[in-house]
């Protein structure tokens, strides 16, 4: 597929850019943070996003979505990255709906996907347990008890945990921590006895929390896919999730960079604008080059999802690793080139480095994905 956007995609990108720049801006994120918003995102904006179909962009039409594919979702996420827009687009749409689409049976998809696509149901993935992303290390247990399963364990960095209606809990029904086989995925409703939630405050001022499961009993029907065999579907869903996060980081990095270049043209020292200093010019030019590479690798990875390409894991780790690197550089340079004002909470540039850091970590950071990229490349 040619590495260009088609007309439909350009329209989607432009309408996302317009809407989010008006309704879900950095200023709104600040307001949500400072007011201690209970839900953590603006529900009326989320409703509007869902009405425009964004919650179902990548969900097939048969299940109530638009069927535009992940390239479409990636374009919206990129714009969300530019504006640091807060919504359940990542947790419920990018991640949970994808896990359901990969692992769920038709009945489960019919039951869950249209509700997610309508923005009515908020589902989120509960995966990580330790300090690092290490999916094969999952130790949360799932024990068969008659027709039911009993789940016990503790999950961290569960996106939108305190507002989710349901969780997809990855638990071990067989094998040992470190093994890829033996993992299962369960759908667990928030109100199920034994489930407890703690909202956590992270550096990016977004919703994330800890989910504790104490002998939580769920029926057999809550199992997504075959027991003990979730790995390959989960792996593919995580690849897609990482490509989506890479799209968000692309928008975030591009925006931080453009704001910084704008400042270089405006701020004066030594009687001239600081953008005339070659020391800064070359750093800006190098960053520009890196951003162009970032843009290509993200588009290539998004198209690889929609084309059903076999080497998706390589594409995903390449895109995530590269975007972690570029986002870190763009946001660090953003602060440095703003000087003292860049260190203030009043200035918006600091919001970019904070969100970048959490998105970088989520589902594996630079170090995780560069290592995986090397392994998949055979060395």
């Amino acid at each position, binding site marked *: 597929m*040619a*590495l*260009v956007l088609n007309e439909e995609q350009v329209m989607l990108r432009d309408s996302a850019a317009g809407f989010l720049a008006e309704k879900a801006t950095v200023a709104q994120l600040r307001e949500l943070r400072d007011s201690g918003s209970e839900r953590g995102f603006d529900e009326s904006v989320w409703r509007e996003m869902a009405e425009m179909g964004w919650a179902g962009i990548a969900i097939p039409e048969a299940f109530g979505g638009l069927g535009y594919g992940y390239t479409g979702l990636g374009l919206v996420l990129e714009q969300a990255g530019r504006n640091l827009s807060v919504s359940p687009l990542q947790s419920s749409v990018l991640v949970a709906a994808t896990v359901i689409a990969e692992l769920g049976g038709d009945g489960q998809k019919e039951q869950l996907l249209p509700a997610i696509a309508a923005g009515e149901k908020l589902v989120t993935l509960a995966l990580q347990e330790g300090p690092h992303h290490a999916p094969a290390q999952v130790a949360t247990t799932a024990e068969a008890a008659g027709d039911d399963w009993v789940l016990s364990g503790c999950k961290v960095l569960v996106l939108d945990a305190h507002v989710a209606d349901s969780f997809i809990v990855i638990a071990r029904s067989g094998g040992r921590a470190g093994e890829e086989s033996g993992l299962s995925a369960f759908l667990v409703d928030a109100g199920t006895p034994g489930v407890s939630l703690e909202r956590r405050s992270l550096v990016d001022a977004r919703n994330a929390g800890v989910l504790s499961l104490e002998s939580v009993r769920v029926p057999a029907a809550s199992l997504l896919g075959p027991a003990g065999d979730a790995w390959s579907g989960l792996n593919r869903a995580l690849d897609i999730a990482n490509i989506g996060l890479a799209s968000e980081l692309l928008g975030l990095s591009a925006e931080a960079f453009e704001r910084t*270049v704008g400042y*270089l*043209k405006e701020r004066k020292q030594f009687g*001239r*604008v600081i*953008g*005339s200093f*070659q020391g*800064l*010019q*070359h750093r*800006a*030019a*190098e960053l*520009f*080059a890196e951003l*162009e*590479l*970032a*843009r*290509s*690798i993200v*588009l*290539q990875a998004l198209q690889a999802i929609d084309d059903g390409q076999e080497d998706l894991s390589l594409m995903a780790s*390449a895109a995530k*690793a*590269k975007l972690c690197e570029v986002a870190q550089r763009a946001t660090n340079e953003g602060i440095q080139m703003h000087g003292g004002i860049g260190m203030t909470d009043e200035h918006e540039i600091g919001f970019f480095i904070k969100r970048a850091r959490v998105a970088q970590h989520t589902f594996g950071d630079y170090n995780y994905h*560069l*290592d995986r*990229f*090397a*392994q998949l*490349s*055979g*060395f």
Partner: protein
Amino acid sequence: MSDLDPFRQETRAWLEENCPESMRTPVRSFLEMYSGGRNPEIDHPDQKVWCDRMAERGWTVPQWPKEYGGGGLDRDEVKVLREEMARINARSPLDSFGISMLGPALLKFGNEEQKLEHLPKICRGEIRWCQGYSEPNAGSDLASLATRAEDKGDHYLINGQKVWTSYADKADWIFCLVRTDNSGSKHEGISFVLFDMDQPGVTVRPIRLISGSSPFCETFFDNARAEKKDLVGAEGNGWTIAKYLLTHEREMISGFGAAPKKSVGQLAMESMGADASGRLANSILRQNIAQYQLDTFAFAATMARVGDEAKAGQGLGAASSIFKYYGTELNKRRNELNLAALGEPALGWEGDAYRGGAVSRDWLRSKGNSIEGGTSEVQLNIIAKRVLGLPDE
């Protein structure tokens, strides 16, 4: 796509029949490339056979119009031809500055007579060209060049010196930047002329590089003669042509950033082995190689994206401004990592055991990539000013 199938079949059959077996092996060094000329450097007799057969079809430069000796193929057909050549590992029949640099400039700025005179000879590999841009005091600041051209009615008399002129000792003709007027700004008064190197007023002295070979020269002009009909564009308009040609030179050089057939990671695994987890034994080297391969992967995607954008009629995007800078820096990284990955065998300079020192010589040669055709620093200046719009002092 399927409309191209007959063309593909025909091309495949023709290549099968006409590409000599000996030309179906990879080119391992610059020395094995064929550049034609009156006294061509021949590494294997089939080089000329292969070049002549391809030239007959216009396929040494398939994208140029037929009337100028090219193949008159469109983009998709050129792609098919390249794919079919790659399929049988066919070498490029002819690589020259005439193809990569002068040709595009003549197609855009030359008059009909000049195109008909010079382009077919480039396609057939009859005339080999060199580039007379740099001077001892005009490198990055190319526009301050001082080689003079004096108007003598039907011709110019040329006096001055060029330097770093690649293959001046092998070339038949030179495309040369000369000063025809001193009165205006330094960018004005530069003219773009073509002349034969085989004349008493031209002296060439090879310069030896750190890689041991002597591909470039000092070139002296002492009343050298250039015919007026070989002035390209208007007198004093040479800077525009010079810059246009440079974009093509840079495009060619940025191709060095492409991924090698066998990855550096694989080379390192063969040379060093893996640890118990199956990863390359030295984790620091592994990380450096991974970073390089990741950037190469993203660079290839960027070349593809820019190509696709141009094909979709979106023009040559700003991304193309990074190619020269990024591609050459990647090639330097690759060469550094090659040495680290291969160890002792990569340090050889001479002898069959070291393949004549190919690895270390390529490594040294790669250092010039970020200098020739405009240095990396100059490329970054261009991006900062033209693309990002950052001001001068």
